[in-house]
Structure formats: structure tokens, C-alpha cells
């Protein structure tokens, strides 16, 4: 069967699926599924026969997990969604991340209020992961603007990295049984202590699998001119670790802003990363001119990629899960905007085209070659 490129687009009004040949010329759109309900997370699970998962975050009737076994032609609800134990006292407010586990039916799910769940049967039943959900810090975390969310799950062997806003980066080295706050070098602008043990507003974390220990983080930056307690803290927004997230250092020099939401790593070149700098106060493109910025040396230098993107009057935001990259030899980037556009950046972001111009506001974009 010829390879296809599948794009899932989670929006304020349901999930859309776009499909293309691997040439990535035109994309055919279908959906929305879970109509009218916000979707904050999707997963294209290619470990076995492809399955597409989507969180359906219904403010009326609660959270659901949708699954498709036909590449997003139709979806159905799994038999249950994550839920806190009755005696816990917390209630699920949103589903922010879906990630594959070890077994082909294993899933991990990050939720709001910040907690982690696991499923061993493709999302039909869920179990809360105590080590982070009932961590000593858990009741001290504060919600960010998007809510108190566990939005990032990065796994490699027994290491599990979590991104929590606002909780920071947590690391497990025992397969998720226990977690430690691991935020050395991760700044917090909204805290009198610039480098607290935990409580940072981490926006996204990625890890190239080719280089053990290498990680990149988009943190809540924009504090270079801060005049309050603790003083200025420039460059805390874009960070790199070379020791499995045990310590982090700034790689923001050269960017127009260290504030942003997504960060994406090239599938074949671990030194190549992409961010979308935003003006901290407005969280829109600096100068109303959108740009994706690329580093090809692990954050040592940055280049602005704008060919094909609007040159003026653009005030959109790209949210934390709003950008992804495919795994083709010459990969394309994809990002969705809060103004309902989806853009493709072919040749690693060298040239941009708008795939869809008038979708509902986009929360997340994921891509897979199947």
C-alpha cells in the first residue's frame, strides 16, 4: 500500500483529519469528528495497525477519548476516559496529552488538573499513575493561563519526562513509579525566586532519540526586562539539556523573543530544532509577521524561516501542540493557528503554504506517515 501522510488537527470545534500522498501536495480534509467539542490532544499510533486517538473535551458532558481504526474516517468513544478515584476529590477538567506506551495497546494520558493516567487496553480502561498524580508537590502546583495541565509525556526506556504547567519538568527513572522535580536551570519569571525547585511554566519538551540525554524545552519566557523581585531573567524561555533533563541551559540567544509554545525537533537531525517566537504580552507573532525559527546546531544560532508566510497584519498564536514535523527524508513542518489556519513548511520549513485557511481555532496538529 502506498504511504500516506496523515495530519490530525484538533480544534475548538472537533478534530479534523487531512490525508495526502507522501508527495505532500494536496491534502484532503475530513471531519470534524466529535463535532462542536474542543480537542486538545491527538495521537496517531503507528505501532501496529494505525489508530488515531483524540481527546474530546466536552464542557457539558465531560471528557471522552475518541478512537479511529480507519485513519480517521470515523471515530467512536473508548469505553471510558481517565477519571480520578471517587475519594480523590479532584475531577477531570481536560485531557491534554496522549502518548504511546510500551505495549501496542498501552497509552499514557496527561490531564488537567495535572495528573497522569495509563491504559493497557487502548483507552478502554484507565489507571491513575500515583507517582506523579499524588506527588508531594501536586497540591502546590498552580494553574497557568491554560489551566493546571500535564501536557507533555516523553518516554525512553525507563525514563519518563513530564511537562506540567505550572509545575515544571518531572523525571522518572523507574518507568513512572516515582518522579523527581528536575528543573535545574529552568527559570520562572512569575516567582520571586528565579530558579525554584518546581513550579515553572514549562510549555513543551522534546527529545531527539538519536542522542541519549539530549532534550529541548520551550519554557515560559519573556522575562528579560522584568523589574520585580528577583530581577531580570533573560533567555529562560528556550532551553537545552544534555543530561536527560537533570540540568538545563539557555539557547535563546539570537531569537527575537524567548516566549513561545511549541518546540519541535527534526526527525533525523538531533541538532535541528524549530520554535515559533511570540511577543510575550500578546502571545502573537512579533511585528505581526509570523516566522518559524530554526537552529541547525542545537540552539547555538537561529535562522528565521518566513518564505510564503504573511508579511504583515498577522496576529495569530501557535499553541503548545500546534506544530509537528513528519518523518520523511526531507521532512515538512506543519503548524495550526488560533485563527484557524494550517500551514505546511516543505523542505524543513524553507517554503510555507497554507493548507487550510478557515478551520476553527487550532489547538493541536500531529502528523504521521502510515
Amino acid at each position, binding site marked *: 500500500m502506498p504511504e500516506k501522510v496523515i495530519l490530525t488537527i484538533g480544534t475548538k470545534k472537533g478534530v479534523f483529519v487531512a490525508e495526502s500522498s507522501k508527495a505532500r501536495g494536496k491534502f484532503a480534509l475530513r471531519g470534524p469528528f466529535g463535532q462542536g467539542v474542543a480537542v486538545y490532544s491527538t495521537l496517531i499510533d503507528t505501532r501496529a495497525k494505525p489508530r488515531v486517538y483524540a481527546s474530546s473535551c466536552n464542557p457539558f*458532558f465531560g471528557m471522552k477519548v475518541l478512537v479511529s481504526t480507519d485513519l480517521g474516517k470515523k471515530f467512536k468513544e473508548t469505553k471510558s476516559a481517565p477519571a480520578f478515584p471517587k475519594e480523590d476529590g479532584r475531577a477531570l477538567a481536560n485531557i491534554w496529552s496522549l502518548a504511546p506506551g510500551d505495549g501496542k495497546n498501552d497509552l499514557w494520558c496527561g490531564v488537567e488538573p495535572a495528573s497522569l493516567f495509563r491504559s493497557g487496553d487502548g483507552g478502554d480502561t484507565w489507571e491513575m499513575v500515583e507517582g506523579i498524580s499524588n506527588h508531594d508537590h501536586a497540591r502546590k502546583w498552580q494553574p497557568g493561563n491554560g489551566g493546571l495541565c500535564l501536557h507533555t509525556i516523553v518516554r525512553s526506556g525507563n525514563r519518563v519526562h513530564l511537562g506540567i504547567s505550572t509545575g515544571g519538568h518531572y523525571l522518572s527513572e523507574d518507568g513512572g513509579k516515582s518522579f523527581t522535580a528536575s528543573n535545574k536551570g529552568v527559570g520562572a519569571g512569575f516567582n520571586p525566586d528565579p530558579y525554584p525547585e518546581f513550579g515553572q511554566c514549562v510549555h513543551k519538551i522534546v527529545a531527539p532519540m538519536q542522542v541519549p540525554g539530549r532534550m529541548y524545552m520551550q519554557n515560559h519566557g519573556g522575562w528579560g526586562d522584568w523589574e520585580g523581585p528577583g530581577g531580570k531573567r533573560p533567555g529562560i524561555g528556550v532551553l537545552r539539556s544534555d543530561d536527560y533533563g537533570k540540568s538545563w541551559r539557555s539557547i535563546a540567544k539570537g531569537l527575537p523573543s524567548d516566549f513561545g509554545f511549541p518546540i519541535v525537533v527534526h526527525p533525523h537531525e538531533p541538532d535541528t530544532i524549530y520554535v515559533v517566537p511570540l511577543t510575550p504580552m500578546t502571545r502573537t507573532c512579533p511585528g505581526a509577521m509570523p516566522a518559524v525559527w530554526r537552529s541547525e546546531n542545537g540552539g547555538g544560532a537561529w535562522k528565521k524561516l518566513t518564505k510564503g508566510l504573511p508579511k504583515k497584519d498577522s496576529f495569530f498564536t501557535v499553541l503548545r501542540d500546534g506544530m509537528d514535523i513528519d518523518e520523511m527524508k526531507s521532512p515538512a513542518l506543519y503548524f495550526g493557528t488560533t485563527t484557524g489556519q494550517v500551514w505546511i513548511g516543505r523542505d524543513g520549513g524553507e517554503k510555507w503554504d497554507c493548507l487550510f485557511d478557515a478551520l476553527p481555532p487550532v489547538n493541536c496538529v500531529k502528523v504521521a506517515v502510515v
Partner: protein
Amino acid sequence: MARTLAVTVSVPGGLHVCCDGADEFSLTVPSVRAALDELERAHPNLHRSICDETGAVRRHINLFVNTDHIRDLDGLDTALAPGDTLNVLPAVSGG
């Protein structure tokens, strides 16, 4: 005519999928709380669409006994009498 002993639970269209397409149920229960408990036992997917895992009615769901909102009655402890209808309605909200 024989007097009915049951109350009716009326389910909004958006939740019919949670209960095999049914738009109402007959239950013999003494209170709103007992009605929800019975839904949790017999129709867990429907129950979790009405209540969160703490048992609280979801913020955008309104429960009426006949035409009266339960917040104006005794909340979840509102008594149900034979022939009453417990109306489950989503709130008018969103954007």
C-alpha cells in the same frame, strides 16, 4: 387507571448515545440523588456525562424536577414523587 410508581428521567439528545438511544427512563427512586445512583449503576456512561467523578453535577448540566431547578429545591436531596419527571438539560453556554 393504575397510579404509576415510577419517576421519569428525561435524557437530552446529546446523551442518547450513552444509553443505547433511549430518550427517557422509568425509575423507582425516592430522590434525585437516588436517581443518579441508579443511573451510575445501570448506565455508567450516561452518569459520567451528567456528574464528574466526585459525584457533583457537571457545571453545564442543569437538573429540573418537572419545571423546577434542583438548586431551588433541595439539590441532590430533592425528593421525587411518583409521576415526577427529572429533566436533564445542558446549560445554554459556549461560543
